[in-house]
């Protein structure tokens, strides 16, 4: 199967490329024609360093008729590439957030449906075996009814390595756009796709004020209420120090009527101290969730079945983020008007 990775704008592109490169069943091609000329982290330079084939233009990469594409462009530039991929008959794995507007997300879903190709949103954390166990324990009743959850997705400011993350036009926002969606997707799994009823958000731009564009939030707290009553309290801040040994992490604590469960997507495997760097040692544990996510995408592409999480999951979680921005503008909770209420 021929797979194309389209754009290296997102920091996750490298990990996807390496995983695809190392598989025997994939004929990989990459393209990053919109890269700033001479950027050693982008374009031909990155492809060469990773040892993968590179096409110099979008026309050139689509002329190779990829069976599937991975879209890792800037958030606001997903739509253009997804529509083109769909038109060429390629299945699509699109980096999160699916888009920066509901109209773009809808257009992408419709384009893929029209073309008969799958559209998957790149939410790797739901592929963690520990999270799957949490989901099962909720489904089989051993947790009891879910009362509320609180979760964190903190990371270093990605604008440090990719400046477009600090550009609201290209990124659609700051930390709230970048990090709320991962936890929103886990809730989407736990609640079976129940759409949020109401979102409240508060944010500020205290951290890394020099990196982000004006008005781009670097810290955010988002509270989501679902129609069945479950409340999710989320810290989506880019509050993880850039010089920390890890990029950040993700946790989710579920309070059920019979038990509490704490999920850590990136548990610390080894600690200690590294005298050569003068920093704490932090060897991450857990499993390779990106690899499991790509397995799902490639299997769905191969068999023609619907991938999970699909474009609709991407849209549902995007709506939560857009409601969070509406709440930030008004200072009040934002009720999602077009919620399709699911009986609890």
């Amino acid at each position: 199967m021929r797979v194309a990775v389209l754009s290296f704008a997102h920091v996750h592109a490298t990990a996807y490329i390496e995983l695809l490169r190392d598989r025997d069943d994939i004929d990989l091609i990459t393209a990053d024609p919109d890269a700033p000329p001479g950027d050693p982290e982008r374009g031909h330079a990155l492809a060469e360093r990773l040892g993968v084939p590179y096409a110099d233009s979008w026309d050139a990469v689509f002329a190779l008729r990829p069976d599937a594409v991975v879209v890792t462009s800037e958030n606001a530039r997903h739509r253009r590439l997804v529509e083109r991929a769909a038109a060429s008959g390629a299945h699509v794995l699109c980096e999160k957030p699916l888009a920066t507007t509901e109209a773009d997300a809808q257009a992408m879903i419709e384009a893929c449906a029209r073309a008969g190709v799958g559209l998957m949103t790149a939410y790797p954390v739901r592929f963690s075996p520990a999270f799957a166990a949490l989901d099962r324990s909720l489904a089989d009743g051993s947790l009891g009814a879910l009362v509320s959850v609180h979760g964190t997705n903190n990371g270093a400011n990605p604008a440090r390595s990719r400046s477009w993350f600090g550009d609201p036009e290209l990124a659609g926002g700051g930390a709230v756009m970048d990090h709320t969606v991962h936890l929103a997707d886990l809730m989407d799994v736990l609640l079976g796709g129940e759409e949020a009823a109401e979102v409240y958000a508060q944010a500020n731009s205290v951290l890394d004020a020099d990196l982000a564009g004006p008005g781009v939030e670097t810290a955010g707290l988002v509270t989501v209420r679902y129609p069945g009553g479950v409340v999710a309290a989320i810290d989506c801040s880019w509050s993880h120090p850039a010089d920390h040994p890890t990029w950040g992490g993700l946790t989710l604590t579920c309070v059920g009527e019979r038990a509490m469960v704490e999920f850590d997507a990136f548990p610390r495997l080894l600690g200690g101290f590294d005298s050569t760097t003068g920093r704490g040692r932090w060897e991450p544990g857990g499993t390779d969730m990106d690899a499991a996510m790509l397995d799902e995408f490639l299997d769905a592409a191969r068999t023609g079945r619907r991938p999970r999480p699909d474009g609709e999951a991407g849209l549902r979680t995007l709506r939560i983020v857009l409601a969070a921005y509406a709440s930030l503008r008004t200072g009040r909770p934002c009720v999602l008007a077009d919620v399709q209420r699911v009986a609890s």
Partner: protein
Amino acid sequence: MAELDIAVIGAGGIARVHLPAWTALGARVRLYAPDERAPELAGAHGATLHSSLHEAISGATVVDVCTPTDTHRGITLAAVAAGAHVLCEKPLALRTADAQEMADAADAAGVRLYPGHVVRWFPAYDRLRAVVAGGGLGRIAVARFTRTGCYPAWSPWFADPARSGGILTDQMIHDMDIARWLFGEVVRVHAHQRGHLAAPVPPAPVATGTAVLTHASGVITQVVGVWGPPATPFRTTFHVSGTDGTVRHDSLASPALRVTGTAGDPEGIPSGDFGQSPYLAQIREFADAFAGGVQEPRVTAADGVAAVRIAEAAVESARTGRAVELSTSVEQSTSMEGIVT
């Protein structure tokens, strides 16, 4: 300290912690509680048992109010009227107006009123305050606090919002007070609460609360409270981020002593780490002030009123679904000095 005559009112969990702290400081203690456990508690600590509130309060230097929250106002006003200083367990009251009335009455009578926001004396929070106030985190952006324990079903009044205020007021006021102590006045509050929120509760009840506080300084704080299933161990955590780094705490992560192998009962009242009990440290600081010391304790009546205001706003938000705006024109607290924002 032997000059102090302390009237402890109540014989529940908090009285059982306060009473030995007073006797450890050498105070004379009397006890009154309409509670069958009162004689045994008085006997165990050499306290004089009184048979009426009036009798216990008369002539006392300090009245220590360790009763359910809905009775705080009446007992405090009676104590103030009798000329006694008051240590009142948190929350001062269920409503801001009541808390303010208590503070005003103490002021007018020339006696001192202090709320028992004891978390300010827990070593991790005391140290956090020092780190934040010392500028160790640079400019603060965002903080989160969690407080988890088993549902306080051992005494039925906790589950009754008319008596305790529920989890938002009774439990989460601890971290609301800490957040305000660290990051300054709160101007907006949004909160939810879920679970078993009214008495009587079923066996093994659960309740949770979440609140987002917006401070005038721009800092945003998330407070999460859990009254969990019966085997839930008591645990508190916090995580604070600023321009110069982060600080985090997990009360279960690094105990000085860890005991395993027993089927231990979860405790309702956390004990501090080894070293001085935070309850004793709190009472010592209050006792110095009650004895005429010039040093104001780290928490004042105004702080207690402000904490009730935040909690009351959270309750209103949870009830109405709205974010509640708080004006900052209320009296300034002296404890706000030295905040780095």
